């Protein structure tokens, strides 16, 4: 995973608090969700080969587990979780070696 992000394993980022809705009217914005964060990371931080990070449906690819403040994102609403100030979002790539 670090290989995708210039070997950095921790990145502190200021993420926009609101994203436009799909129809892109400026006055209709929604609070930033993890779905937005994944899109934003792909556009802003990823140097190459986005398919190693994102999947087809705007989520992360298979084999990546997302943590919201130290807990499995499934407990927090997965893609629709609304980011709070100072949230720590971690992307874990599963290991298979032994």
């Amino acid at each position, binding site marked *: 995973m670090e290989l995708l992000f210039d070997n950095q394993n921790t990145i502190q980022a200021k993420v926009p608090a609101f994203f436009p809705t799909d129809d892109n009217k400026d006055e209709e914005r929604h609070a930033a969700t993890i779905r937005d964060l994944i899109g934003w990371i792909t556009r802003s931080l990823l140097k190459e080969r986005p*398919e*190693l990070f994102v999947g087809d449906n705007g989520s992360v*690819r*298979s*084999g*990546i*587990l997302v*943590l919201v403040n*130290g*807990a*499995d994102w*499934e*407990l927090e609403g997965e893609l629709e979780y609304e980011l709070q100030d100072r949230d720590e979002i971690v992307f*874990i*790539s*599963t*290991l*298979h*070696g*032994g």
Partner: protein
Amino acid sequence: RLEKVAKLTNPEIARYGRQLILPGFGIHGQMCLRNCSMLVVGAGGLGSSCALYLGGSGIGRLGIVDHDTVDISNLHRQVIHNEARQGLSKAQSAAVSVRLLNPHCQVVVHDLVLDSSNAQPIIDAYDIVIDATDNVATRYLLNDACVLSKKPLVSGSALRLDGQLTIYNYGGGPCYRCLFPTPPPSETVTNCSDGGVLGVVPGIVGCLQALEAIKIATGMNAQDPPTMTLFSANSSTMFRTIKLRKRKADCIVCGDSPTITKLIDYVRFCGSSATDK
């Protein structure tokens, strides 16, 4: 299946004395181990420390699965083998070491590649399964076989300087497919031969797998919520415990209406083979 006994022999009492006097473990814990059989799948980096400590701990029967043979490049991390056993079956070599350490432990050698044709009866014969393998296909195979056979699965993995540890299919927690319904793209999967590994890293994870299996056998962790332990040798905080989801009602193997009711072709499912190295 392992025949249950009602009490320990005097040599067993002498051998396990430091566990028998342990508050919160004692004779009850030791009897739970004595009447428990465990299967360690993989006698490599994870399986080395795991099988040694389980063999020493006093479990009644230890099965060891591996189809590979001992190579010099394994020995920096696979400390259950040694230089003289080069070329010998890893399952055999591991069994020799465990028997030398503790002749009271019944060791069963499974010198084979586990696949959907042979896994179910082997897993059915043990109480707890330890995933100490090194490839995605066998991880899904073990998961499904453990769900079908209602056995807890203690899963460990290690690569480079990192490790992961989870108990699947236990106490209302998730199975591997609840967390990872589809296998990762094969270009994102790295094994220790290609990615490298610091030898002691799988040693640490394998010890933790032995501990988790002992906690299951003795019920010590029966009230714990499902977690994953992340290990990172190169971080100043080396361990991190994360809270996991419960079993998913819509999981295709452990959910309320499973569509997987027998083992499938895992090599095809994962697009990679169990013997790719």
